[in-house]
């Protein structure tokens, strides 16, 4: 169905499209990781492609391969009703250099998807506005969806945050300062109604 999209992509980018394949009716293009964003922009803006909806982004880890991490993006075109799977391979054995350009400027919906891929697989997205963990907590060690993360691994206990780390006072604050709130009726120096 989107064979045409694949050939259009190949025609436009030539050597930057490393592999293409079609299986089970899904068209896949493996692209040069350095031109990730450029290709995404073309996919969105070209009138014959018009991929306007980001469907999914995830990382698939192949520890025996190099580059190790495959970042898989699925896009869909609501006007032309076709789909494409785009892949980029990043990261060496130790996941060094597992970086891609962020696509938030292309499709705003990938913001959380990129955060999730960062959280789960440890791929860094350059230029992401707010790249932090999303499903896990900030102190979590490692990236759970890598193949070498043992499923039964335990995580260290987290100490309480100090006030300087949290950036806010952690002691409970009294609800009212001395000059705030109701200044009548509760004043011990004034006759109280509660004794009646």
């Amino acid at each position, binding site marked *: 169905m989107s064979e045409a999209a694949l050939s259009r992509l190949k025609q436009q980018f030539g050597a930057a499209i490393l592999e293409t394949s079609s299986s089970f009716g899904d068209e896949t293009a493996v692209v040069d990781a350095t031109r990730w964003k450029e290709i995404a922009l073309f996919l969105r803006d070209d009138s014959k492609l018009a991929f306007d*909806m980001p469907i999914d982004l995830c990382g*698939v880890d192949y520890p025996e391969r190099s580059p190790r991490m495959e970042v898989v993006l699925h896009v869909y075109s609501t006007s032309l009703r076709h789909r494409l799977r785009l892949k980029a391979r990043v990261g060496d054995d130790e996941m060094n250099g597992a970086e891609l350009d962020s696509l938030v400027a292309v*499709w705003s919906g990938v913001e959380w998807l990129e955060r999730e891929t960062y959280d789960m697989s440890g791929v860094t997205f350059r230029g992401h506005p707010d790249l932090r963990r999303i*499903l896990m907590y900030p102190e979590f060690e490692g990236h759970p969806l890598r193949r070498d993360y043992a499923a039964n691994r335990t995580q260290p206990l987290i100490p309480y945050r100090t006030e300087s780390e949290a950036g806010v006072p952690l002691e409970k604050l009294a609800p009212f300062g001395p000059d705030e709130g109701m200044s009548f009726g509760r004043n011990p120096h004034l006759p109280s109604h509660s004794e009646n």
Partner: protein
Amino acid sequence: MEPLDIDLAEGELELPSEPMHLNLGPSHPAMHGTVRIVLELSGESISKADVQIGYLHRGFEKMCERGTWTQVFPYVDRLNYVSPMLNNVGYALAVEKLCGLVVPDRCQWYRMALGELARMSDHLTCTGAMAMELGAFTPFLWAIKAREMVWDILEEETGARLTHSFGRIGGMAKPPTPAFKELVRGTIPRVLQLMNECEKMLLKNRIFLDRLENVGIISGKDAIALGWTGPCLRASGVDYDVRKAHPYLKYDEVDFDVPLGKKGDTLDRFLVRVEELQQCGRILTQICDRMADDGPVNCDDPRYVLPEKQDVYTTIEATIQHFKLIMEGAKIPKGEVYSYTEGGNGELGFYLVSDGSGTPYRVRIRPPCFQITNGLSRLITGRMLSDIIPIFGSINMIGGECDH
């Protein structure tokens, strides 16, 4: 009593003008699902919102890499726990796409019927809960009463009210019960009747309308760029329903309409869901007319489908087949596939990678409400604090699905 106005210097009782920080959630009675929203308020309007999810993260995708392909079914039940049958069907279709299996006609109709029942339960819960959070308790009880009727059918069919684990690779766990069609035919009018009453109660209520209308507007273009799908996208006027755009099972053979909204506000999202309930009823009636009363439900493929129990106990071939399928798991051909169906909240996708063994290499789920919740902060920023409740209710975030 002493006089109330005590002499105070001008400005002494001025309210503080710096923004106030408020944590809404993770466990707040007026929010469905465990989600935390860190708000920066200026007065009562929201100047900044940070939606934090992940409180229900259970490592679904990691767990799937440990068992057999069939053992994923109980996990997908717990993704969208309001319409688990849609997840079951979606996952089964994804694996079958990878195997090149096509289930018999009767099973396709049956899956559609169960899926539409699950969709009804999803929409009833969402609309009912949303009304309740806005203070309308009676419609909620009616919607839950209607949902209970739907669940009664599902319980009759599967034995479980909520987590059915009923899908199988190449079929279903059991064929439809003899009373299935009769039950569906008898129940649907009652469910729709109840929903009509709810609708009347709510849509003639000024308070309800005022809190929904023109609140949380999102344009179709923005919704697409955010990756919204399902009723929320259709409320913004974008005609994209997987059942129509890319028909699977027998959806191309039944007659139904896809309701679209005009403005993309909270009221539209509510109305789209209400109308989809009626369409579910239409589809179910047609399914009851078309589904055969007998015939096979499971594929006849010993590589993937368990043999009949009585054969397992009486013949050696079936015993071995059963043993291999349970202990080693069905060997799914090497490859990768992305399969998508229309879930309760939108496009429910499964991206599966198989290395040819009995255990999935990677199961990636594309939960529709993850993307929708991504757009929440931009919907509520600039609105009043009280608008969060209807907006959040209308996007129907399901924690199990959103947090994986």
